[in-house]
């Protein structure tokens, strides 16, 4: 099911990789349903050739990789338990392990700062939070290794780390003897005017579904981009940003700057479902990172060029992003 939320992202790229997906769907019966349609037309176009085309497993010898520290950090203004930093390590492609490899015992801090006239940021040392692999309530035990939270979430939840729109945040990591850092900025949140339901359809299981539309006014500042997240029946109990469904606008900010936006997501919702909808305003570097993330995920096939994940983290042999998400939200019951 998780695949469906990616549909919107796919449209953001050239549609020709999609055509490729079609061919691949033809040879790979495992492919998800939404590809089935494209497969069909590809069958029409290339069927004679592809009726016989096939896929086989081969042995590939790869050169060893250079292990990287993978950083996934978030700071937001609404959900304190969703302000966390995940540290993990990359592994050889053919490594048998399919779990993320946590990097434990690192020193992780987040410091708040303010932009000074002249463009420098002054860091408020008094406002420095030391994050730890704490036994935070609501956070599953299996999720704690290599995941760094503000320990005040246990002791004094009211005082725990919370992002302030307009402020800057400095992430500093000292892991296995090496130092890394990243800065992110929380933009002013953009209010969600309303989330409405509409565009009914019947899904492949014959269930009546509707889609939701987010209504908001895009601010008249360039370089302000949005990411959208939602919690609904299918992911209700999940924890973490990776446990939510999400989408992005199919066009860049400069195509719709300052306009009133009515964005419909392709995701289907059953009537009566309660949706917690979040819109995150992000800076261009954060948006670009998630853009590269979506491209990395979609990238295979004969016509693709390999895309590496972007990074906003400073240091050597490190990848990842410190995402400042300036959230606004709405909870609606789908009708």
């Amino acid at each position, binding site marked *: 099911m998780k695949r469906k939320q990616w549909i919107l992202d796919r449209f953001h790229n050239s549609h020709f990789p999609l055509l490729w997906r079609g061919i691949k769907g033809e040879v790979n019966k495992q492919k998800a349903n939404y590809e089935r349609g494209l497969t069909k037309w590809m*069958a*029409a176009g290339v069927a004679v050739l*592809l009726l016989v085309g096939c*896929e086989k497993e081969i042995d590939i010898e790869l*050169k060893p990789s250079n292990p990287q520290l993978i950083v996934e950090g978030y700071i937001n203004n609404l959900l304190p338990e969703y302000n966390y930093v995940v540290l993990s390590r990359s592994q050889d492609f053919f490594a048998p392990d399919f779990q*993320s490899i946590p990097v434990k015992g690192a020193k992780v801090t987040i410091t708040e700062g303010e932009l000074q006239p002249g463009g420098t940021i002054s860091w408020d040392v008094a406002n420095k939070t030391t994050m730890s692999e704490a036994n935070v309530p609501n956070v599953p035990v299996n*999720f704690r290794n290599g995941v760094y939270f503000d320990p005040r979430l246990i002791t004094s939840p009211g005082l725990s780390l919370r992002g302030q729109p307009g402020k800057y945040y400095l992430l500093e990591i000292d892991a296995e003897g090496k130092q890394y850092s990243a800065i992110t900025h929380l933009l002013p949140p953009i209010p969600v005017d309303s989330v409405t339901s509409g565009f009914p359809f019947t899904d492949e299981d014959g269930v009546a579904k509707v889609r939701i539309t987010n209504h908001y006014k895009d601010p008249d500042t360039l370089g302000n981009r949005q990411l959208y997240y939602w919690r609904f029946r299918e992911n209700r109990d999940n924890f973490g940003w990776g446990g939510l469904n999400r989408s992005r606008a199919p*066009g860049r900010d400069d195509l719709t700057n300052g306009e009133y936006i009515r964005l419909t997501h392709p995701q289907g919702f059953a009537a009566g479902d309660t949706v917690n909808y979040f819109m995150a305003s992000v800076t261009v570097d954060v948006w670009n990172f998630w853009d590269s993330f979506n491209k*990395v995920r979609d990238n295979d096939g004969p016509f693709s060029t390999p895309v590496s994940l972007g990074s906003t983290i400073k240091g050597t042999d490190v990848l990842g992003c410190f995402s400042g998400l300036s959230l606004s939200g709405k909870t609606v019951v789908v009708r």
Partner: protein
Amino acid sequence: MQHFPLSFVFIAQQIPMRLITIVLVLLFMASGSLQAQVRVQVVVTGPGQQPLRQAQVALRNMNLMTDSLGMANASIAPGQYELLVTAFRYDTLRLPIILTNDTTLYFTLRPNAKLMNEVVVRSSRNVAENQMGRQTISASQLRRLPVLLGEIDPLKTITLLPGIKSGGEASAGIYVRGGGPDQNLVLMDGVPVYNPNHLLGFFSIFNGEAIKDVEVFKGGMPAEYGGRLSSVIAINTREGDKQTTKVSGGIGLISSRLSVETPIVKNKSSFIISARRTYIDQVARLLAKDRVGNNGYFFYDVNAKADYILNANNKLNLVFYAGRDNFTFVNDDDGRNRTFNTNWGNTLGGLNWQQQLGSRLQQTTGLVYNNFGLDSRFGFSTLSFLFASGLRDYQFKTDWQYKSNEKLQLRWGAQYIWHRFRPGAGGITSGVQQFKSQIKDQYAHEAAAYASADWKPNEKWGITAGLRYSYFNQVGPTEKILYGADGVPTGERIVFGKGQSIAQYHYPEPRLNLLYRLSEQASLKMAYTQTIQYLQLATTSSATFPSDLWLPASELIKPGKAQQISLGYFKNFRNNMYELSVETYYKTLTNQLEFRPGAQLLLNQNLEGEMIFGSGVAYGMELFVQKKTGRLTGWLGYTLSRTERTFAELNQGKAFPYRYDRTHDLSLVANYTLSKKWEFSGVFVYGTGNALTLPTGRFGYSIGYNPTAQQPLFTNVNQYTAINDYRMPAYHRLDVSFTYTKRPDSKKKYKSSWNFSVYNLYNRYNPFFIYLDADTDTQTVKGKQVFLFPIIPSVTWNFKW
């Protein structure tokens, strides 16, 4: 205008001795006073009065070649000669002649009924001509070679020549001596073609029925050609028969073609129209009805050519091509309303005037129109997507040739092109929300002038020196949005008025060819060229797609530049039955354009912000041996080469192999005449696998947790270290075909033949591409190879009357 006092007409199939005697007597009688030199003009045509280009005319030691008017001129001392006219696939004509006065001789050659003495690739000029890196393949040769699904494709066939490579299975690109797929000047009767492919590269736009021959320059480009860095691929189409109406065609598995030619004014003008349409969708529907449904793909193309001989010295021709690909997909069976429609195509037109001014001077002036357009619309769930892009050219060109004497020949000319680019207008609608991108059209002037001298100071040496000077100016009206380094618009824009220069470039493009005859049967050649390319193809992928954009040189995009030096040894054996050539080359490429990995191409108003610029180098050795006569003809081509690219932003700035770097590339082509009725052809190709970037590591990202399944949620992300440091398995394949002509000796007008071919005879699973699959569900990591074409037989029926 110079008029020749005498002219004679010879028809090859009926020159009885009596006539020759009469001619000789006439020649004597016409000789009023003996001159020091007489001028001879020879005009060679086929039976339908079509001029025969590159027919060889030998007058004692003098070897002449006919031009596109079928004309060859010489100045020679009066006297008795034996004249020999030879042309590919025509009977040779031998005629004693006494020349006393300026004379024009008309020859109509008879097609060669026997195919035994077939010339496979015409480079009998192998040793003698001061030109390297040129090869020609005739239509009849194209027709005999085995091809995928019986579709004759000149662009696929030329990749059997050394130094010219295809991208692999089902790849549209042609890579000449390490150059990119956009670096080939593809000309159809002199009209540039921007997108020479149908169906994502499975087939080219050139209909085998309409083709006369294909000529490729991979080095030593003459000065009249320019605008692309790596090669010239000139496809010449047939002229119609000027005496009788003829129909020919073929019915194949996925397409059929028909060609009709007819005289308009007998012996003066003719018209030919060839059309082709595929029915791959209909065939697919028959084979898998439930899967195909109402979706469809087809392409069609139409070639037409009219020519008119105004008089002995003036000729006009009009060429036209239109082709369109159409793809439709409709599916709403799960309520999601997916629709996809895209169509793209070229429309080309050209008007040429060829004129002979006296016996020495010749000119060709032409007007060219060229349009490529793509329209696509895509509907999916609540999303709809529209995209249109295109390019339009108007071109004027004039080429002059002056033959001072046998030792010196001069050529000069000029061309001018007005370009209009539509880099992509489109929009996405998501529900009611629209995201519209309107990138302003771009305009440019491109012009060039050239002069070239072909000098043969003595029997041993030949020097061809030329200089082309090219100019490019991108002009307004346009409006440019300025973007900061972070890709965010600064809010500023620059407005350019109509005709106002935005970016201007001009470069000299020197060309030099040297020939040294070691002996009658062997020579050494050297060539140096500098080429400039002002239009570059923007593509994110390694294949070429109709959605790829041609972009003009701009302030940021500097014109591409290539320099190539090549050296070669050429030798003929056994009375020219065998030809051998060994060519080595070294080529540098600068201002090469690439997009950042993951670049956003469609609906991006700041396309230039996604580009990176680098350089390339290519070097190699090409061996070509061919057997030209006998029952068995064919060739062996082998290339040993290396091609690299360097970009500061890629591979830590270190040089990396080009994707189509091919260390070894071998092709073996054989034609064997089994009997009068049966002919056999076979093609074997072998090539080092393409270079590929594969991940070396992986990690999980976008982490979450699913408490119900007690499992973390994350997406596997690949980690890459070096670019193109993995090699796909080698590509090799054997294709065979048999052509059966039922009544080869039939005197009837109606003729037909069957072509049976088998593609990939030993069913090699050649990699189309390779990918690594890390499946989190099954917790397995696997390497996978996708291949497209196993053994594929096909049959085509060809007819003509």
